[in-house]
């Protein structure tokens, strides 16, 4: 069909509203709309209503941008596989670690959890509960201890015990706080000194309700310690987490996990198709 007849100004505005309201951001929304405008749609009636074709095209495009061959799989690069979990305050790191520990134990791996958040009130107690629920051990120290030393001790223990995976919880921190980002770099360095290659995965835990600042968070954490994957939490709410499109497009960082609730089983391998559907639905 003629793009002009279907892609009326009204429809384009509706699509733009939909994309922006899912936090895709102005630039990503614009480039999706540009792709839409330059796409050759089929005028054969078998392909369905023009509006449906348009939505299918958008859904496929979004899905392609985020598709991963192996979401939710754990690469067995090393032993122990060290996963450093980072992100801003309140994004869901500690809860996600509980879920990951349970998920991995359930798939037959031995897991150790490190409580390297030695700052926030009751952070250690919170992680302890999750570790117990997941049926794994937790290495931690008292509030005020040096987080890098906790991480180091936990890695020593992980090596000594021959566990498959070490999950390191860190304190929430805003990416514009230089001293806190330096602290995070130190934690990562200390892990790498004890075990070359560690941390093998650096998981940025991102709250799906986050707006455009999410891209900035990803940039800064990537600059500081490198980020290998995103865990997008609170997708059981109404926020659609569209900022991950910009994160993937500009930084190449994939989403591997979706947090969909507060229970231990509420962590799913990221499903690009379901995500695209949720964004446009």
């Amino acid at each position, binding site marked *: 069909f003629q793009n002009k007849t279907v892609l009326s100004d009204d429809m384009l505005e509706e699509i733009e*509203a939909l994309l*922006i*309201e*899912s*936090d895709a*951001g*102005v630039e990503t929304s614009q480039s999706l709309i540009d792709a839409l405008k330059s796409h050759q749609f089929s005028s054969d009636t078998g392909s369905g209503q023009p509006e449906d074709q348009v939505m299918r095209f958008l859904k496929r495009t979004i899905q392609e941008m985020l598709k991963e061959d192996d979401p939710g799989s754990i690469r067995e690069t090393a032993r122990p596989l060290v996963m450093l979990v980072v992100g*801003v*305050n*309140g*994004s*869901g790191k500690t809860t996600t670690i509980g879920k990951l520990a349970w998920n991995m134990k359930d798939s037959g791996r031995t897991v150790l959890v490190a409580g390297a958040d030695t*700052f*926030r*009130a*009751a952070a250690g*107690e*919170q992680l*302890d*509960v*999750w570790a117990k629920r997941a049926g794994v051990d937790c290495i931690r120290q008292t509030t005020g201890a040096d987080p890098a030393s906790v991480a180091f001790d936990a890695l020593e223990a992980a090596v000594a015990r021959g566990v498959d995976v070490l999950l390191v919880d860190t304190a929430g921190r*805003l*990416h*514009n*706080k230089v001293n806190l980002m330096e602290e995070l770099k130190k934690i990562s360095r200390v892990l790498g000194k004890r075990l070359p290659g560690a941390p093998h995965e650096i998981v940025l835990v991102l*709250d*799906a*309700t*986050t*707006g*455009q*600042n*999410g891209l*900035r968070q990803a940039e800064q954490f990537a600059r500081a310690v490198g980020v290998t994957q995103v865990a997008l939490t*609170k997708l*059981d*709410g*109404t*926020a*659609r987490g569209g*900022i991950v499109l910009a994160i993937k497009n500009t930084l190449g960082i994939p989403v591997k996990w979706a947090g969909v609730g*507060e229970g231990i089983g509420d962590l799913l391998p990221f499903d690009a198709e379901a995500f695209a559907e949720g964004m446009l639905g």
Partner: protein
Amino acid sequence: DLIQKLDAAFKRFRNAGKLNEKNIAEAMRDIRRVLLEADVNYQVVKQFVASVQEKAVGQEVLQSITPGQQIVKIVHDELVHLLGQAHVPLKWGGHVPSVIMIVGLQGSGKTTFTGKLALFLRKQEHQPLLAALDVYRPAAVEQLQTLGESLGLPVFTGDRKSPVAIAEAAVREARKTHRDVLLLDTAGRLHIDQDMMDELMSIRKTVKPQEILFVADSMTGQDAVRSAREFMDRLDFDGIVLTKMDGDAKGGAALSIRSITGKPIKFIGTGEKLDQLEPFHPDRMASRIIG
């Protein structure tokens, strides 16, 4: 920032001849983009730009030698106006204790804010009692207890099972121990979780708080209006708190939540320590959004 964008835009226009309504329309596109990138809600931006455009086609701008600056001033003033008053006080009202209920989505900063508010009130010669109504999150009660301990203030935990019962018992405890203000820290919850929203309504019905504060993360994007609207419909809260303002998020959610609810922004959180609480300043917020 907005002034640079508009200055550049208007330089182009003036070189092309007299400033007119078409130029203004183009400037509005720049403003729209800045606000959307600052996370102001899509529909709120639409209304905002329409009202600014109306003001911008006035004679002062068209005759001005610095139309960019004129328009920025209109945008800034309109933002300040919409963002509301500075220093709107907490509601009291001769109740003993005065009850303040703290609500919001998961991880927005409620428990930390409860501690901050307790310190703020103590500095004003009040005797706060904190109550831990989050019986769900692991170590949530311990978290509030730790904060209370650091302030030398009592934390009521009740039966650690039923938030409504804990709230009721906390009121009795406050009266018994002569605490004049009771702060209820509640569990984070989704606005679409019917049972949990019902729980809040039940707590409200039971203890009739003088003040309900909706605690929102300042980095929230387009979702801000969805949650604020639902909490507003269910609880008709009295004020808004924006947390993590020490970050670098533009904070457009402030305008979104304010537009949707009409409620005042009473406090901002500016750090993790309990003394990092400040009153809201609409002019500073406006500059931050378009800065």
